[in-house]
């Protein structure tokens, strides 16, 4: 499989008519160390976060034993938290690899939810049109964010910070102006019978869980209905987004452009990589995924709140960094961001299951972020051979 394994490439005699450089230059450089497969694993961008997931699981298996954290409904609980974060952490990682940040993700979650709920509840639009409207508006704003970053060459940190405030303020102000409140309920009534809403806020696999409950493989409520009523759609979306992102990053031309854009913008540009387009598309993708999460929550809970998604832009960036993405761009992975989101979900819910004060979660998160950044820096030096 690996053509570069030592000894796999015998020195061949030069073919007739080849250049002198070819004949004389043929020698295996004996100073290149052969890497053990374990070393290769160690140098992957997502290795640290995978190790983190395993360590945390082992830790809470002891710390939260007997709490139900590892019962099927307990697992569902922390997977749900991870999925919600994962949906936005994956595009945040891709954007970070391309060298930019989007701090407006959290505000976009609240904003997109309001953008779907207000037309559905107050203007009487069919819910699916309200959903499509909210997606279009969010992606349009993401494109504007990206365009401004590319055009002005200001740090995206500043431009998207402005968007953070503008979008949060808009969500609150417009909802108060139109409806005189910041929480819009009644979406579940409006969404009854809608074809699109269940794809975002629904659950699938209910019959399977009824069956599992009947066989006593999972717990039931008093009335005999299973503790898990189905797999939330956001988990399906998480897996789908992660799979697409991983595929794009590792196997497509666009993926190579993402790495090149974040690695060295000038080099990428002078070789014909459409740097501006790459960045704008990635800003659209973070906005799209934030809207996906925001609208899903509205459809799941049946209400929209203007303050939803508070601080989630930081959580997404933290998950991406824990997942091995470099803050400076050019390096990272989608799977790493997923592991980062898993670490987040396991730790947050594990602390709850272990019955500790949940303020410890923030301490843990801050410490972990610092460790992750130091570790990433170390890995970067290993990869580039920099001293």
């Amino acid at each position, binding site marked *: 499989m*690996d*053509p*570069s394994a*030592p000894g796999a*490439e015998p020195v061949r005699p030069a073919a007739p008519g080849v*250049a*002198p*450089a*070819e004949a*004389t*230059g*043929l*020698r*295996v*450089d004996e100073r*290149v160390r*052969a890497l053990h497969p374990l070393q290769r694993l160690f140098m992957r961008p997502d290795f640290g976060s995978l190790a983190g997931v395993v360590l945390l699981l082992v830790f809470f298996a002891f710390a939260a034993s007997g709490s139900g954290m590892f019962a099927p409904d307990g697992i569902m609980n922390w997977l749900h938290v991870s999925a919600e974060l994962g949906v936005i952490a994956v595009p945040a990682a891709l954007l970070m690899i391309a060298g930019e940040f989007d701090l407006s993700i959290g505000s976009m979650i609240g904003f997109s939810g309001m953008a779907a709920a207000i037309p559905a509840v107050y203007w009487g639009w069919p819910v699916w049109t309200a959903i499509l409207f909210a997606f279009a508006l969010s992606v349009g704003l993401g494109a504007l964010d990206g365009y401004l970053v590319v055009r002005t060459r200001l740090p995206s940190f500043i431009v998207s910070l402005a968007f953070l405030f503008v979008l949060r303020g808009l969500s609150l102000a417009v909802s108060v102006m139109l409806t005189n409140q910041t929480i819009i309920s009644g979406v579940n009534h409006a969404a009854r019978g809608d074809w699109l809403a269940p794809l975002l806020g629904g659950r699938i696999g209910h019959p399977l869980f009824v069956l599992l409950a009947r066989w006593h493989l999972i717990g039931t409520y008093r009335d005999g209905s299973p503790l898990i009523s189905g797999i939330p759609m956001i988990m399906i979306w998480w897996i789908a987004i992660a799979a697409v992102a991983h595929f794009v990053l590792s*196997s*497509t*031309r666009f*993926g*190579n*452009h993402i*790495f*090149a854009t974040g*690695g*060295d913008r*000038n*080099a*990428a*540009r*002078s*070789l*014909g*990589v459409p740097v501006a387009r790459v960045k704008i598309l990635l800003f659209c993708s973070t906005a799209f995924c934030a809207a996906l999460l925001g609208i899903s929550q509205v459809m799941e809970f049946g209400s929209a709140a203007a303050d939803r998604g508070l601080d989630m832009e930081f959580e997404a960036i933290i998950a991406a960094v824990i997942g091995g993405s*470099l803050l400076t761009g*050019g*390096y990272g992975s989608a799977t790493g961001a997923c592991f980062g989101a898993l670490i987040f979900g396991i730790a947050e819910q594990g602390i709850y299951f272990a019955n500790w004060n949940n303020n410890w979660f923030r301490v843990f998160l801050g410490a972990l972020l610092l460790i992750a950044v130091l570790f990433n820096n170390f890995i*970067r030096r290993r*990869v*580039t*051979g*920099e001293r």
Partner: protein
Amino acid sequence: MASLIETRDVHMHFGHVIALAGISFMLEESQVHCLLGDNGAGKSTLIKILSGVFRPSAGEYLVEGTPARFTSPRDALDAGIATVFQDLAMVPLMSITRNFFMGREPVRAWGPLRIMDFRSADRVAREEMRRIGIDLRDPGQAVGTLSGGERQCLAIARAVYFGARVLILDEPTSALGVAQTSMVLRYVHLVREKGLGVIFITHNVRHAMAVGDEFTVLDRGRIAGRFRRGEATLESLQALMAGGKELAELATELGGTV
């Protein structure tokens, strides 16, 4: 036969600074044209015009006889003019293969999708690097792990592979050791045999003499001299580059070691 590229009385101004004051320059097929000059002579400005980074303030720039209107290096690249800049345009964190094909990734069909063809990309990267004299163990290793000379060779191999008709090398030997320098010089020779035109920018007169067919010396934005192979001597080129007198004085001060 029209020359590959030609400039006619090209001027370049930056504000009130006159970087080039009337450069006429010509490159033909199978020719290595060395561009010599001290710092500030205008070498970099000239090649930035040739490679599409700048547009000349005045004068004509012809590619195979027709006026060129490049708005970006990409346009020049599409016209077959590949430049290896001093910064090499490499991303250290990316693999050799990903760097080699940056912006021109080979794809193959995978169902309805088009995915990067890493198998052939890796093979091509290995082959092209071997041709320039570097045997890669792993085309998947990061460019950051390569030495300066290896990166230089990678940049040159990449430029040649993507169908360049004209190869512009901006100080390709500045970061190299003795063995790698001779490798690059031999490669330049090889590229010329294939019919490409090469513009070779250097400080080092010895390197220029080793491969050059024609030599143009720039000084303060003007052409200070032009020689064919055999017409120029090491000393005369060096004297021209330094603007004549200073070097001779320096040489006597240092006991003739320059």
